């Protein structure tokens, strides 16, 4: 059974369709890149999967059960600018939030939760910044804090919205390492991604999206010149064929 199945999802804003009949099914332990032009509905897809915005139609199944029953198995890494980094809290505290689902409602974090949060900070190379106020961190460091928080959540499926945007080379490397580690641990990871040139290096599967699913499947066979042209409406002229077909 595939861990993540999206079945005929349709989403509309003010009667304008932004996602139309989106279906795909992701096998376990795969890294999936979600690729498409601005306004293609990539972030909307994630938000609708997580019920932040209502679906007009369609279902999301997590290990065979509706998402609503399996929330705890799905971790979400939002875009970095979706929160206020001036919030009075430090890096460790933010990572600790990843444990809240395990701790349970109205209970206090235990010592082991703090230890797990510290380990997760260490994994993304942020342990020295544990007590640093989050506004004092660079963009890349903030992104790594978000990733550590996702790790601390210990989910089976991760949805990451543009984790590579505006980060430094060191962070990009750290993210790639982390994605591969998650993969070897059998986690399934979906990543909204912008940079077409790195798709082949990073992802096992791609979902080419432009309001509808243009193509979905193994990167090798799916990330082709024709599919990309269809996704971007024939606007990808600056890319040489070598980048894409490799």
């Amino acid at each position: 059974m595939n861990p993540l199945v999206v079945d005929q999802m349709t989403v509309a804003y003010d009667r304008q369709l932004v996602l139309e009949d989106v279906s795909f099914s992701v096998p376990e332990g795969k890294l999936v890149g979600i690729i498409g032009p601005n306004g293609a509905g990539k972030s909307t897809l994630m938000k609708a999967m997580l019920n932040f915005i209502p679906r007009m139609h369609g279902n999301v199944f997590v290990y065979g059960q509706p998402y609503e029953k399996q929330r705890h198995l799905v971790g979400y890494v939002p875009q970095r600018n979706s929160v206020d980094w001036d919030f009075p809290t430090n890096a460790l505290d933010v990572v600790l939030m990843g444990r809240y689902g395990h701790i349970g409602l109205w209970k206090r974090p235990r010592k082991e939760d703090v230890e797990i949060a510290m380990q997760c900070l260490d994994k993304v190379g942020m342990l020295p910044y544990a007590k640093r106020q989050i506004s004092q961190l660079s963009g890349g460091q903030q992104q790594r804090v978000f990733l550590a928080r996702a790790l601390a959540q210990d989910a089976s499926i991760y949805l990451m919205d543009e984790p590579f945007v505006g980060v430094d080379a060191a962070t990009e490397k750290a993210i790639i390492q982390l994605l591969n580690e998650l993969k070897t641990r059998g986690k399934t990871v979906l990543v909204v991604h912008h940079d077409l040139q790195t798709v082949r290096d990073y992802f096992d599967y791609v979902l080419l999206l432009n309001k509808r699913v243009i193509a979905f499947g193994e990167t090798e066979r799916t990330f082709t010149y024709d599919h990309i042209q269809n996704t971007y409406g024939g606007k990808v002229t600056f890319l040489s064929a070598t980048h894409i077909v490799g």
Partner: protein
Amino acid sequence: MSYTIWILLTATLVGINCGLVGTFLVLRKMSMLSDAISHSVLLGIVGAYMVSHQLQGVSMLIGALLVGLLTTFLVQLLHQKGVQSDAAIGVVFTCLFAIGVVLISLFADRVHLDVEHALMGEIAFVPWDVLEVGGRSIGPKAVWLLGFVLAINIFVIVFAYKELKISSFDSEMAITLGIPVVLIHYVLMGMLSLTTVASFDSVGAILVVAMLIVPSATAYLWTDRLSTMLICSAFIGVLASVIGYVGATAFNVSISGAIAVSTGVIFFVSLWIAPKHGLLRKWMKKSPA
């Protein structure tokens, strides 16, 4: 106990209550909602009088709570229907407040409540309106009411600290973790309504906004931790109350006015000298020492 101590105690309790609740409003960028609720609870108070024919603590609290939550709900509803959120706030609270004003004028001859009192409050009268048990006075009603609301506020903040924190910082993340974000929002609005109505008699509908927002905005400049910010905000509220009262008696001016002015003074001083976010510090950082 003497007159002065009761007034100081009242002002202190207002400062602590408003400081605690206000911290979450500032962090959630909902400062204007406190303006809305502080006005619309007037309708709750009048409504409570129409039902119970008295201006007593409990019925007033219930009335304010209901209208406060109604305000929150209507603002949310209009916003969902496509009205800008600031316009939604403006429409809802002015309407509810206006209904309250009309009703007050309707019952003006029978009820000890006037619009000026509702807007400005009069803390100087607080010590005369005492609660009596078995014929003995046990202190002003306002103090008991504020103490009761403070117990509720502290209980909720201690009990739901991590839930309040995550839903204020990253509500989407909170939803995915199964935290009842909407419930927490309404609980907070309930706390705001109770705090407002309990502080009403003392500082009135306009000045309570100052007590809710200014100490919290000041505390935000001084600290990098939520727990410290809560304590700091409550402390600044108390400090402003004491300075305001002392200033008001010295110059023989409005006590609630002087308290609100004090919050403003503390804020502007902090804006310059606060260690981490103050302007002086920022300039010193820019120019190489």
